[in-house]
């Protein structure tokens, strides 16, 4: 390991410790912000693991998330909670594999549209089942506290970072970067592009489903319209793009400011939240197309150049 890697690892460990101790020092309000930040960090980072290197924009987060919440909703009375998270992870991975095998041969806008439709498809299937069985919304009444859910999310985040770091160092990560640069070249170099893409898509689907499973007790009442709200998919994309998807730590640099901007808008303009969020989206895409990571790197390059001239 190089000294740079050791430094990064130490920084990550400190950040994790600070995050994990939030329940000890945070106010209730800070904790509720914390759970939002943790949720979007997990979702955006796992999204970027797939979409960062491959440039495939997936809008399927809501589908996987909803599958996770339903896993908890249907099973929390009979199975221990930790096993539901695991089951949700497996279901998310299986769904992602099916979708991936069917669609990752599609590229560009076709893939985007398919993933957007996926959430709606799963939602309609569940609604149809409910309609057939007369089954209503699910009530997830548990004794889990917000602190416990938060810690689970932080644990999941740590797992995502570890996975991302390992993938980055592996042959798979290398293969994905080549695919992102030029898929034809990758295929000609003997990389099985379909397998590589499906594997990564499974990781991101699995993580989103686990996030949904963890958060179901917080929402208490699970119904299709709420569990599969398409806005979630867009939020994740915007946050990841605001941060920057080329670095593992990029998305969180977007998640934190975006959560704060959102909170400020919700507080200051309670009647025009959607309007101002839309403006925020436009401003982000127009003025910081490479995300905060891009800005930070630019600033660093600039500082180095100045040093060079001095």
């Amino acid at each position, binding site marked *: 390991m190089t000294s740079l890697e050791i430094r990064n690892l130490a920084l990550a460990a400190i950040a994790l410790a600070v995050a994990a101790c939030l329940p000890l020092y945070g106010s209730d309000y800070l904790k509720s912000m914390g759970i*939002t930040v943790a949720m979007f960090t997990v979702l955006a980072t796992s999204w970027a693991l797939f979409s960062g290197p491959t440039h495939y924009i997936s809008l399927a987060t809501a589908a996987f998330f909803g599958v996770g919440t339903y896993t908890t909703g249907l099973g929390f009375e009979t199975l221990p909670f930790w096993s539901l998270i695991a089951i949700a992870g497996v279901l998310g991975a299986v769904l992602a594999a099916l979708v991936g095998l069917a669609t990752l041969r599609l590229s560009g806008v076709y893939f985007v549209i398919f993933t957007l439709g996926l959430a709606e498809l799963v939602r309609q299937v569940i609604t149809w089942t409910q309609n057939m069985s007369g089954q*209503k919304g699910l009530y997830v009444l548990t004794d889990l506290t917000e602190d416990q859910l938060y810690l689970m999310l932080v644990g999941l985040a740590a797992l995502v970072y570890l996975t991302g770091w390992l993938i980055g160092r592996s042959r798979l990560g290398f293969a994905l970067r080549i695919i992102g640069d030029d898929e034809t070249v990758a295929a000609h170099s003997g990389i099985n592009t379909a397998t590589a893409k499906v594997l990564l898509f499974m990781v991101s689907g699995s993580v989103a489903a686990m996030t949904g499973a963890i958060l179901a007790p917080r929402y*208490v009442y699970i119904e299709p*319209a709420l569990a599969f709200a398409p806005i979630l998919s867009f939020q994740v994309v915007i946050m990841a793009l605001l941060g920057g998807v080329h670095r593992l730590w990029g998305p969180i640099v977007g998640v934190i400011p975006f959560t*704060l901007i959102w909170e400020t808008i919700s507080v*200051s303009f309670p009647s025009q*939240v959607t309007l101002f969020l839309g403006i925020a989206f436009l401003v982000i895409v127009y003025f910081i197309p490479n995300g905060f990571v891009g800005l930070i790197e630019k600033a660093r390059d600039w500082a180095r150049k100045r040093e060079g001239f001095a």
Partner: protein
Amino acid sequence: MTMKRRTALKLGVAAAAGLAAPRLALASDVVTIGAVAPKTGPLAGGSNVSHWPNIKLWSTQVNEAGGLNVGGTRKMVEVVEYDDQTNPGETIKAVQRLATQDKADFIVAPYGTGLNIAAAPLFDRYGYPQIAVTAITDQIDSLSSKFPGMFFTLGSTTAFASDVVNVLSKMRDEGTLTGNRIAMVNVADAFGIELAAAGRPLFEKAGFDIVYDTSYPLGTQDLSPVVKAAKAANPNAFIAWSYPPDTFGLTEQAVIEDLKVEAYYTAVATSFPAFGGRFAAAAEGILGAGGVNPDSEAFKAYAAAHEAVTGAKPDYWASATTYSSLQVLQQAIEAAGLDRDAVKEHIRSHSFDTILGDMSFKTHNNNEKYWTVGQWQDGVFHGVASTGRDGAKPVRVKHGWS
């Protein structure tokens, strides 16, 4: 009103700090009432008719009367509003913010079943009474034992379905409904599914014959196949467990198809003034969920004030109940002070005088007097069936569409 000051303040402070700024007003001279409900998203249409205008009306009236009487001192009411975008995650964040940052003394219950239940653990943790209105469920017992501060005002799903069956049974006994044939449709979404599931066995038990039974997805634009097929089954009564958009859509098709039935029922939003406005004479005799007693002096005064303050008419169902829930809160605060546990206890153990008549929550925190079925009669939506309310009108037969 209060929004402008807050906006100006917070733009500066919050943008810099990045977090919601603490409220600067001194808490001693005002009572802060928090409110969170959809202003945007799928449920905004309903909450902008039944929910938000009543909060505005109530706070305006209280302040014009000199404020709330808390232990002999008059305190003005300041309302802090948030939009949850019909997203339970946002509802949770907003309730958290109201409790910890805005230090709200009380919080008005959110809008809609899902959003109310999502907020229930937080209301419970901070000890707020939650007088839910638009939360119709068959889980009242288990929810109120899990969350002792949660109260229900609008009734249970089964009560709504069974009163429709009762109304039709009575029409059949009186001979105005000349047969047993029922066409039943439902929107494939939470409340529609629940009502259909509750209604199906009740109809069969009452000796009705469900000759057509189908569902359509939420947001279906073209409902003509549904109405055509129902018409082809030649029913005596048409029952739709519907939501606002399809309540309008189905009725439009029924007019076009000239659906000949002796009883026609659509569920949510039939009680909206816009429904009567849209269908005018064709609305005559249409049955729907909810109802009020529009002839009572209390309702008349309320409706006049509602229109004067908010510029819109109240609906003939949830509006008056929302307003009544605020009256309950007000009377409990004036009797028990700002101590939230005392207020909850007071709500549980007393009876309240509201525009709907008396209201109490003595069994399972459930108000047991509520309207279940109404009917458009002479341009007004009258209650025709209820659990324990006075003033129900006799049901009329549906005579054509003009």
